């Protein structure tokens, strides 16, 4: 496999850009975890213990 890397076109992020990216990544991660928790709880509340009572 050949990978062409043009060093002169590579974007090098500044410290503040890296910091902002980390900040956004953490926020996005937390939002995703929150979304999973919401869907999990709603599933339990809506279906209750019946969620386990299904034929296999």
């Amino acid at each position, binding site marked *: 496999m050949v990978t062409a890397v043009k060093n002169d076109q590579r*974007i090098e992020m500044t410290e503040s850009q890296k910091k902002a*990216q980390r900040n956004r990544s953490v926020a996005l991660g937390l939002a995703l975890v929150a979304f999973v928790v*919401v869907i999990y709880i*709603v599933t339990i509340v809506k279906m209750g213990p019946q969620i386990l009572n299904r034929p296999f």
Partner: protein
Amino acid sequence: MSLVDKNGYGEVAFHVSEAHASDYIALLKPRVMSLVVFTAFVGMVTAPAAINPFIACFAILAIAVGAGASGSLNMWYDADIDAVMSRTVNRPVPAGRVLPSQALAFGLVLSGFSIGVLGLVANWVAAGLLAFTIFFYAVIYTMWLKRWTPQNIVIGGAAGAFPPVVGWAAVTGDVSLYPIIQFLIIFLWTPPHFWALALFKSGDYERAGVPMMPNVAGEASTKRQIFAYALVVAVTGVLPTVFGFAGNAYGLLAAGLGIGFVWYSWKVLQMPESDRAMKPAKALFGFSLLYLFAIFTALLADSVLRDLGLVW
């Protein structure tokens, strides 16, 4: 050195974002969102049915995110006029921290998620109303009415008035007279609230080319209209008691607050054209916020006390 330069709120060929999560939170207009959460919550509590507390919390969350999404779409479309108004110049898009396309994508994705989650968590009537609210605010108000007519805030006020109806529908799955009265209270309150602001910020709106009432019809006409709306708001505020949805204690409080609203509007009507400090307009703006908060707090208290059998 970065290869990327910020270039106002316009798009650039290469862009490495320096936006923090707080900039995206600012796109959601948290202060507007807090009012949406509160009025939607009151709509839920006053609804004549029980709802699982988890479902209620997540429905409120979905409504809040939907309101935030419409705020993001508004900031995407209005970046050009936000950039010339002192009140909005530091918003993430005009300040160059978030690109318009990023605000658009953020708003669209959150709109989809909030509508979908509300539909799955509560019901599709509430989700449909939330979708219509987002559409009304982003398209009907922001893209069409705001730059076209001085009645922008009159008709556009409907978007801000929908949350209690959505909250009610999330519990009952339908809409009846009581949430419509709650809608009317916010709908009729919006013009005097925003025109009071527009009076002492008319220079901002004029620079931005937004046809607000003071810079189209003049200050005298705006003051008369504020007073007329205040009279209607005062009457609408007591309708929950008139129709038997709330008790007499609420009715008395709403009447007192309504008289206060009319009094502050009367002071604005009496304000001379030469008064550029416009203290009466600022006082009315402040009181109008208190009025709405107090009315909905009273409706909430009335509902809770009614459940406890303590309503007079």
